[in-house]
């Protein structure tokens, strides 16, 4: 019935980190992940949930504050949803779809 999720109720998506953020995630730019299709409260998985999920399940570095402050993505980090600025997609309320590509780029590092 559910065309969005796989058999285990997970959404396959690609998450990428650049601009220095990869240091927090196994020093690896591209991650293929299976995100639970619903959040803690049973609602469809959105970007806010993805960010929480990444902090809990994918982050290897200790400097969580480099990625998240005050419960949301740190100012100075750009979020692109399938190459579009997340501001065009409803920011952290954007509901993830199968095979989405989410890119986090830090602009805080040296230029």
């Amino acid at each position, binding site marked *: 019935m559910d065309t969005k999720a796989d058999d285990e109720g997970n959404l396959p998506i690609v998450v990428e980190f650049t601009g*220095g953020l990869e240091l927090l995630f196994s020093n690896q730019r591209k991650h293929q992940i299976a995100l639970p299709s619903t959040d803690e409260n049973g609602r469809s998985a959105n970007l806010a949930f993805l960010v929480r999920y990444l902090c809990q399940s994918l982050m290897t570095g200790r400097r969580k504050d480099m990625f998240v402050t005050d419960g949301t993505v740190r100012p*100075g980090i750009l979020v*692109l949803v399938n190459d579009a600025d997340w501001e*065009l997609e409803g920011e952290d309320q954007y509901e993830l779809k199968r095979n989405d590509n989410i890119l986090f*780029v830090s*602009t805080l*590092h*040296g*230029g």
Partner: protein
Amino acid sequence: MPPTPCALCNASRALIIRPKNHQKLCKACFISLFETEIHNTITANSLFSPGERVAIGASGGKDSTVLASVLKTLNERYNYGLKLMLLSIDEGIKGYRDDSLQTVKRNAVQYEMPLEIVGYDELYGWTMDQVVSQIGKKGNCTYCGVFRRQALDRGAARLGIKHVVTGHNADDVAETVMMNLLRGDLPRLARATSIVTASAASEIKRSKPLKYAYEKEIVLYAHHKGLDYFTTECIYSPEAFRGSARTLIKSLERVRPSAILDVVRSGEDMARLVPAEVSGGHRGGKDVIVNEGEAEGDGGCGSANGRASGGEMADMEKQLLENDGARDNETEITVNGHKHDPNCNKSNRMPKKLRKQQMGKCARCGYLSSQDICKACMLLEGLNKNRPKTQIQVSVEEEDSSPTLTRRMEGLTVIPGHQT
């Protein structure tokens, strides 16, 4: 959400929302508009002349990589007639600069530009690795920043080039405006907001064509054009952006995206109110300000931009306290235009004292300086005095850096409006 159409072509899907005006653009329109605006900045300020040889201060990071790419594009599109080349500084930091220099070398091939690399070791006899092994990690960004400014000038001189462009963006300028506002450093505020800085002694002009470009758009430009740039933070300033004025700027942008350019414009307006004797004197033409290489940021590191180093908000609080006791016998210039109300005499609203800039040449190296000995030579003197005789002493130095040097450093940094 249905896809938003591009505000310009109305055909493609909008991927970018511009921070300064919320305009929603497709990739092609964004790239074209970004380039056109840089072109407008260049022509409005007459930054270049035909046939001019221009060195791009290249760190391999996003800003200078975008600058090189855009200048190449514009030079060809509008026939500027510029001879562009890349000038890189090798600070001598193993595992950091080695990698970023590889990026610059690839850029030289990609953009078909000659590349010149000047090293701290050949210029000063010290690599940053050696400096850090002597003084420890604390305060090393000061050395790096001071050395870098001279290094770009010296590299350009070696190439016979009189114009160096750097990748300073609107966020960098806004950050510097904020810092100097908080410090009450009007001379530096004036220099930092100027798009062109020239120094009488070195004859090397500096300019920042990306001055009005948002860092966010620079990163998006690099992303959408697929540019090859390097992003690892300098290993000696891993916390460089923590508690910094940078964080403040980024938080402002999150609340109101136009804030960054607003701060830049406010800085420019305030700079216009600074008397020429204070800012270092105008040299013909508008928006040209003489400097001794200090205008670009605050001697931080992590990039050729000399971005302010971390924790400076906390440092500044300390400095401001110290400054209260640091009023020495400076040449006094009263900023006019402020009616003095005799009834206010009891309050603290005294006219701000500003130090008059007097430029000369460093007695040791000949570099432009307001002191007999320039900042780099002062730092080198301290380093050379304490150069360890054997390798074993290096580890002992780690914790306890030279007290004389530390004292000298404090003298160099705490006095407001004081250029050394």
